[in-house]
């Protein structure tokens, strides 16, 4: 069925208002729209890794989530979700649970690229029928903007401060989406939210309604860590896509497909300039940093295009 923005937006909320995420935060937009993509009548059970999304949505006794939800620790959303799904298989087989369930796990980049990497990999490899959704804001935001393996090179974070000798994070960003593709799971999608939420909605639907393990990587900016004006959230994600820093693509049973190709690939400055974490790159004498950043984006984009041929 074709995507209908109005219909999707008028669905009953599964992610209630009144949570404690910051204004201009991408995590809440991500969660709300992922949940919207699920059929209203379907039961879901959700695992949340420790992080902003978890801390801001269930502070005892106030809860944002309308569905069954569990948080146990930082590094184990994959294993916890796998355990839930195993329980479902056991209880369904024994006639103790009659309704159908879908399983979702949410983790930030810290909980997915770093500390929860093993647990995520294990859950995908074991073929649990679940969707792992990484909301990638490129640093440990909940603890105060420390670098993760998802942080891009040159980023100014509290553990890779841009100083007079070291120009922000020295290393390139890890490509978790490709690592998940290498798990040979049925569905991997990379997305973010653009004005009509279509790409995120459609990829979520595919991920949830494909049998077996699926992985979604959602770029979800953080106004505190990225230092943009909170009203500009959707401009930032748009720039990430239009500069090809964050291409929108999916891999279904090993087959790559670009889901959006910019008509004219914008220079990376369009993405970097509005963000305070890259401010030092625009100082006189630091032009080489922007050049290096652009080279990395170009390299990854070319590699992806080849795979999508």
């Amino acid at each position, binding site marked *: 069925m074709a995507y209908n923005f109005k219909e999707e937006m008028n669905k009953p909320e599964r992610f209630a208002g009144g949570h404690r995420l910051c204004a201009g935060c991408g995590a809440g937009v991500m969660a709300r729209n992922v949940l919207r993509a699920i059929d209203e009548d379907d039961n879901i059970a959700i695992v949340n890794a420790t992080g902003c999304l978890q*801390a801001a949505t269930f502070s*005892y006794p106030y809860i944002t989530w309308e569905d*069954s939800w569990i948080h146990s*620790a930082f590094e184990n959303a994959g294993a916890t979700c*796998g*355990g839930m799904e195993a329980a479902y298989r*056991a*209880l369904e*087989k024994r006639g103790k*649970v009659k309704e159908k369930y879908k399983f979702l796990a949410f983790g930030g980049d810290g909980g997915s690229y770093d500390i929860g990497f093993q647990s995520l990999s294990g859950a995908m490899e074991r073929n649990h029928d679940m969707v792992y959704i990484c909301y990638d804001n490129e640093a440990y935001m909940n603890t105060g903007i420390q670098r993760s393996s998802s942080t891009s090179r040159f980023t100014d974070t509290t553990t890779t401060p841009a100083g007079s000798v070291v120009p922000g994070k020295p290393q390139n960003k890890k490509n978790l989406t490709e690592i998940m593709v290498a798990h040979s799971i049925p569905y991997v999608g990379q997305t973010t939210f653009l004005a009509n939420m279509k790409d995120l909605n459609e990829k979520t639907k595919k991920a949830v309604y494909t049998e077996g393990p699926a992985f979604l990587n959602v770029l979800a900016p953080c106004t505190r860590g990225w230092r943009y004006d909170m009203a500009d959230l959707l401009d930032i994600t748009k720039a990430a896509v239009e500069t090809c820093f964050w291409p929108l693509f999916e891999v279904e049973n090993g087959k790559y497909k670009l889901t959006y190709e910019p008509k004219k690939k914008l220079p990376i400055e369009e993405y970097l300039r509005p963000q305070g974490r890259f401010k030092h790159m625009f100082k006189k004498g630091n032009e080489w940093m922007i050049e290096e950043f652009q080279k990395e984006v170009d390299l990854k984009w070319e590699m992806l295009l080849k795979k999508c041929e």
Partner: protein
Amino acid sequence: MGIKDRLSGNEATAMAMKSMNMDVMAAFPITPSTEIPEQFSQYVANGLTDTVFVPVESEHSAMSACIGSQAAGARSCTATSSNGLALMHEMLHIASAMRLPITMACITRAITGPINIHNDHSDAMSSRDCGWIQIHAEDVQEAYDNYIMSVRIAEHKKVLLPVMICQDGFITSHAVENVELLEEEDIRSFVGFYEPDYYLLNPELKVAMGPYDPPTYLMEHKRQQAEAMIDSLDVIKEIYDEFGKLTGRYYDLIETYKIEDAERIIILLGSSAGTAKIVVDELRSKGEKVGIIKIRSYRPFPGKLIREALKSPKVVAVLDKAEGLSSIGGPVYSDVCAALNGNAGFKIVNYIYGIGGRDVRTDDIHEVFADLQDDIDGKESKAKTAANYRYLALRE
């Protein structure tokens, strides 16, 4: 009627798990507990059980998967040892705080530092403050019986705490002994079904677990956990009695052996109790007044039972198979001293023994009783190291 068989502790544990028809088992291999998931997956492979077996990629994930599974409403179990238990440590606290009645076979083994695969209690003792009930077995029969009873204890509405069912690595886990097994139908009617009030896969009553718990609530939530642990003292006894009626094998939270008039008493747990009983018999045949107290339930700690059992000894030795590295003795010693609340009226000494699989022979237990006699006689103790904090079979 029971079924006579010859099984190792690991085999008997896997058999108990199969007989109870657990919903989910999630496990990772580690010596000496590996045989349990091995044997269990063999049952699955041969269609002898339809339990969902999740072969996770670490012990941390084993406990995490058990948490997800039990929270979802499934009766879940695992098995581990040593560093595996240490890797689970974080999740042990979370499992008990969520009040999830997971059961776990803990096949005790020394924790690495340096690596050693043999038995001591450094793994179980390092987990003593995690809010898990911890039951120790002397032999294969107890390991088997304990597991079956523990599922009931864990799931009791007044308890709702996870249980760690401990047996000594290799000594019990690999020793083949005569055991009496229960008929599967008897086990199933004894344990019944897991029927939680709150679970994730209930569309009629959706629940959320694992909140951020602010300072206005965490203290009360911890107190609730503490009360469940206190309440479990009576529940354990109740379920032991029910099991006794079914099997003729009656248990208590402690087992006393010839302590009625004993002047010298050893307190210990696990397989060494069997060795100590032989020594008690030998010394009793010579008219010496000696006895032992075996602690079966280490958490909850049966302080009152121990206090009442120690009627009028002249001296007591507490044996610890873990070096607490506290500078004042091992963990069981600390607990016994706390239970007596400083009003013992007799001397209590501590022995660290059997570390890293150091053999525990009858001669060693004889040495303890001989030391205790010296203590009574006011002779200078021949025991190695400090006055009340001693070592057994330590080479100079």
